[in-house]
């Protein structure tokens, strides 16, 4: 079930009405209801994969309990957490990467002059598997590291793994943040409802108006043979995709966080104005924060982080980003994209090391804006890498770029400008105030008018055919 499908509002209205009706005192009844709703939400897409959710839940809950019992037996604890990692990454690896590695190995063998007989399994990727696998893995890892107590509440844990607002595309919540919220009464206050409604409407607006309209520009340009593009057309394609992917993914996160707020939950911030980043490390503090912090805590730091010398830090940064790219998808563009960002991080770090600069030195407004503008160029190149189907297409886009404003480019840029200006205005206000909820500080009539403007914008300009969220494929 997609947030932008017609059935979802009906589904949520029913879920929400019963949830509120049960009342905060009946936490377990509310959790049972949300769990049933979450399984329905996921099963609506393909009921066959509900078993995977249940397996992940059962394995990690059982391992969590076993870790609790093995307090003093470090070898057993290590074996248990290893089992959790193997099961979770095994499921993820099988469904997401098996066909990719088989195909790529065959290609490699063919390049070496061999004729391998290869059979792929044509495995269907369960939607959201990358998200909930990382989420449930964070639980056993945190219990193993004694950062949290293992839960005794199977119902609550099952809800933690499958909670429908963030099940298929995040934010990737940590057990230490979400489980306590699940296990104790939630309060649905007017402030939360207002913030939730804003996030909901703004998220839908970003998805149906900005992202889907940007896709109208980007889709045909990327589908065309790159050699037929000229002038600013490649730039238009990449810019449109850059807007599309951000509004699509952050729109989803906003909707998820809005739904959570309406029910009294708090999800972590997943986007902090990433296109206002002043450099690579700043970008990853702002883009898909729930993934970048997950990779930091469970991969970068265990690898040694920046505790070794310069070279080991650079290696760790690069490795983490390359693997982060692979997390996004079993395809080379994602690996290249992750590696590219790894290289950017290493260059930034090395430059600071060589120059002996203090990264914490304050930036003036002019310096900040100069960096923001300059960092758009590497950002666009990264987006081109991830969107191009092949290296040939990427090279084609670069070699067929020029300064001429062709009619197609002018149309595309005008279309983009028409649909993107609300995003620019709102984000400039958010950036200036450092508050993502700044629109809610306006007087009541203005807030109402703003909501009405967004609703009317969706009515008139929203792409009506439900277009799947881009990050579902991850």
């Amino acid at each position: 079930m997609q947030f932008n499908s017609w059935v979802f509002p009906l589904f949520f209205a029913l879920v929400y009405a019963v949830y509120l009706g049960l009342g905060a005192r009946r936490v377990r009844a509310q959790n049972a209801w949300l769990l049933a709703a979450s399984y329905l939400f996921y099963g609506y897409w393909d009921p066959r994969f509900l078993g995977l959710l249940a397996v992940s839940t059962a394995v990690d809950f059982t391992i969590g309990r076993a870790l609790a019992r093995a307090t003093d037996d470090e070898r057993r604890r290590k074996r248990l957490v290893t089992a959790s990692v193997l099961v979770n990454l095994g499921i993820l690896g099988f469904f997401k990467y098996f066909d990719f590695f088989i195909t790529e190995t065959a290609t490699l063998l063919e390049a070496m002059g061999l004729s391998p007989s290869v059979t792929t399994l044509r495995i269907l990727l369960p939607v959201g598997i990358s998200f909930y696998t990382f989420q449930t893995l964070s639980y056993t890892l945190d219990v193993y590291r004694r950062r949290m107590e293992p839960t005794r509440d199977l119902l609550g844990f099952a809800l933690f793994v499958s909670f429908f607002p963030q099940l298929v595309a995040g934010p990737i919540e940590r057990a230490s943040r979400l489980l306590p919220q699940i296990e104790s009464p939630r309060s649905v206050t007017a402030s939360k409802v207002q913030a939730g409604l804003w996030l909901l409407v703004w998220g839908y607006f970003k998805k149906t108006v900005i992202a889907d309209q940007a896709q109208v520009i980007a889709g045909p340009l990327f589908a065309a043979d790159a050699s037929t593009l000229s002038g600013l057309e490649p730039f238009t394609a990449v810019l449109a995709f850059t807007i599309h992917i951000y509004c699509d993914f952050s729109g989803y996160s906003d909707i998820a966080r809005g739904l959570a707020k309406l029910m009294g939950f708090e999800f972590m911030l997943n986007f902090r104005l990433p296109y206002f980043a002043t450099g690579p490390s700043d970008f990853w503090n702002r883009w898909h924060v729930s993934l970048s912090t997950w990779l930091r805590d469970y991969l970068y730091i265990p690898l040694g982080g920046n505790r070794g010398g310069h070279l080991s830090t650079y290696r760790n940064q690069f490795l983490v980003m390359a693997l982060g790219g692979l997390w996004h998808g079993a395809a080379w563009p994602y690996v290249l994209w992750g590696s590219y960002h790894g290289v950017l991080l290493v260059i930034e770090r090395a430059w600071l090391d060589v120059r002996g600069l203090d990264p914490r030195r304050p930036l003036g407004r002019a310096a900040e804006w100069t960096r923001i503008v300059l960092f758009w160029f590497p950002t666009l190149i990264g987006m081109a890498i991830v969107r191009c189907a092949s290296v040939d297409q990427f090279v084609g886009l670069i070699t067929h770029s020029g300064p001429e404003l062709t009619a197609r480019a002018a149309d595309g840029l005008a279309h983009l400008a028409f649909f993107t200006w609300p995003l620019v205005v709102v984000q400039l206000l958010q950036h200036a105030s450092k508050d993502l909820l700044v629109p809610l500080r306006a007087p009541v009539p203005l807030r109402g008018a703003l909501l009405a403007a967004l609703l009317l914008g969706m009515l008139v300009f929203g792409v009506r055919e439900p277009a799947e969220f881009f990050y579902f494929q991850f």
Partner: protein
Amino acid sequence: MEGAKKQAGKTLAERLPGERVPSVGRGAVARMLLVAALLTLALNYVAVRLSPPAKRSFDGMVVERKWQLAGTSDAEIVVVGDSSGNFGADAAVLGSELGADAVNLCTYGRFQIRGAAWMLERVLDARERPPALVLVVLGARTFALSPDGFTFAQLPLGPLAFRGGSLAPALPARHALQFVAARALPLFAQSTSFGRALRTGEWEPDLSRLVIEDDGTARIPAANPRAVPRFADRTIAEYGAVEGDVPSSAERAAARALVRAADERGFDLVFATSPIWEEMATRPEHVAFEGRVRAFLEEACAVTERARVLPGDAPRFSADELENPFHVTPDAAGTYSKEVARRLRALGLPRAAR
């Protein structure tokens, strides 16, 4: 990445935006929602009063004009169907070739057979005796489209009219909800044309680009051969995306209702394939998809001698005569209509005037 975080330190933390939930009371939230709801409804009302949907888009104009004709025409030959029939069935040519008045009540594909059935129901309700011949012209692509309540909301009917008449089945719950949303918020139903109008400042369609004759025949001013292959590729992709039965169960029910009505009310019903681009006609995906549609229609018509599928392959045209693989220019519409008339005559239709 840890290093990256530390690099930024306090300065980065200061630069990063956060989320400060403002404290408000229930009353303020309720007032905010009230203002939003009132403004949304009021602006919908004003916008539609200033620029009625039927005057703002070609689709709206087609539907309104055809609906009006359906209630007033007494032609013996009635053509219903999708846009391939809208542009392809030249009522004047059909009439002169078959020796009886004809009217073209075709709209466009998203109405599918159900839309044709509602249009025909209006014809039957408005006159004492049924027409002699009802020709249903549908392109294969129509069966790959998903209808929705927004489309049906363009028919000037109240929601109760969609409970299911003698011909057309009731709207399913999802479509009924979309219908209600489209009526409550008419900007939604006409969002494409309204959005275009806002962007371009063109509030009224250029009528020279779409002429609708008194007999309902719509005319495209020019071919668009460059767009035809692209549209064909898209259509093939749409065929591939169809899941389940072809036609869908709702369309099957509507087709069977038409056949039953022909038998009970005493008129001849003929399903005709649309004009088509010659290269599209040979694409294996199209052949397979159209074959599924045709097989069903032949099975549905087999229950009465009053209903049949027009024999022969779809008349083919070059890209120079088309706007898309199914939309012909006026000259080609004449050719198509003559060919359809020839095949109808071969079937002995229309029967002698009653």
